[in-house]
């Protein structure tokens, strides 16, 4: 066999050096025919070619599948870096709950509308994830609106909030999201909405049973952690009797 490939570690590889180039179409006609002549006479290289072809086929398929869309290639010469890995929500994952609470939470997380996914259901039967539920915000003061969506996901509720037409918060002001129980007046702060009126919050699903309403208030950055007098939006995600409810108020 001619032209042995040098092993960078110092050893020798007896494989013909051009088998990969042959499969990838990188050789000239003359080079291709020379490799062909060699393969006619060399059984070991024919066996190597079979192994190389398997690897080449796997890699070619993967490369083609993972190729970025042409628009992305045009937009950027360098591929965007991969974002950092998500942090495992260990406490939530390790948290075990009494079955009764699971059932109660499941019953309570019922939104105002069926999931708007009729068109997009095909092939989802075996997907091991929860179904999002949602409720509409109604204005308490002003003319804002919006929607709250919750996913009860193996013990953790992921809540996503999108509001519309809320007046821009003034200097030193912000919109804060709460869980609210109208019967007892109990409130639980979830966090602050972003400047675009959107926010995402995550909390154990057992908390949902103690509340029925998602409230958005306008707060001042005055150091007072209590709810202000100004509620601007509310969405009811469950009736006070524990059954599903839709009304806002």
């Amino acid at each position, binding site marked *: 066999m001619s032209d042995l490939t040098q092993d960078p570690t110092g050893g020798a590889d007896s494989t013909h050096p051009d088998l990969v180039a042959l499969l990838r179409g990188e050789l000239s006609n003359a080079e291709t025919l020379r490799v062909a002549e060699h393969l006619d006479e060399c059984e070991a290289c024919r066996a190597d070619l079979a192994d190389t072809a398997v690897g080449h086929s*796997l890699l070619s398929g*993967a490369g083609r599948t993972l190729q970025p869309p042409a628009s992305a290639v045009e937009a950027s010469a360098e591929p965007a870096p991969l974002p950092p890995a998500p942090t495992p929500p260990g406490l939530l994952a390790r948290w075990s709950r009494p079955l009764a609470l699971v059932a109660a939470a499941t019953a309570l997380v019922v939104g105002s509308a069926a999931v708007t996914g009729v068109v997009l259901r095909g*092939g989802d039967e075996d*997907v091991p994830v929860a179904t999002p539920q949602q409720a509409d915000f109604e204005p308490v003061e002003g003319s804002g609106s919006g929607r709250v969506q919750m996913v009860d996901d193996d013990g953790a509720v992921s809540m996503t909030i999108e509001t519309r037409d809320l007046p821009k918060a003034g200097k030193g002001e912000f919109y804060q999201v709460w869980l609210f129980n109208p019967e007892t007046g109990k409130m639980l702060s979830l966090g602050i909405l972003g400047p675009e009126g959107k926010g995402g919050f995550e909390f154990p699903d057992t908390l949902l049973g103690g509340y029925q309403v998602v409230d958005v208030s306008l707060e001042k950055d005055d150091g007072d952690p209590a709810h202000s007098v100004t509620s601007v939006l509310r969405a009811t995600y469950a009736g006070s009797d524990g059954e599903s409810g839709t009304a806002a108020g």
Partner: protein
Amino acid sequence: MELPDNAGGRAIGIRLADHDETALEDAYAAYAPAVLAYVSKYVGRDEAEDVLQRTFLDAWRHAGRYDPRQRFTGWLFTIAHRRAVDTLRNRRTQVVDVETIRDLTGEDGRETVERFADAADVRAAVGKLPDHERVVIEMAYFEDLTQQEIATRLELPLGTVKARASRGTRRLATLMRAEEGGAR
């Protein structure tokens, strides 16, 4: 980066089910690029990173439901598929291209999930190659460079690039056979 010996897809799935936090890191290192490519195809680059993160968090939370008889990447990409569908579903004010919906949810959608799962398995196996072989293989097959171009870029003799490509390609085939054999 070389992955640990127990980082094969099914082994990662089993470790995830045991709530081994390093399994999530291994899964992300091995499969995130392929998942990102998959979800970018449907939701676009701007939302793809968010869908990527939610996919892996769902994989963590639902790892107890992973069946080790099932291919891990098939399970993972099914979650990615669902998250991509959710994202398109929530675009109330934007028109979603009909072809995108058809490709994502029809018969082609299942085929696409399987194709990306295949590609992710190969991509993960490439990550297990020795670094000097991995770099050449990645440039050849994922950046579509010729061996001559790789030699120029790496400032290596062409013969060295050929040798690394040759050994890397055959080693990759062996790794994939071993992974497949271990699943039986």
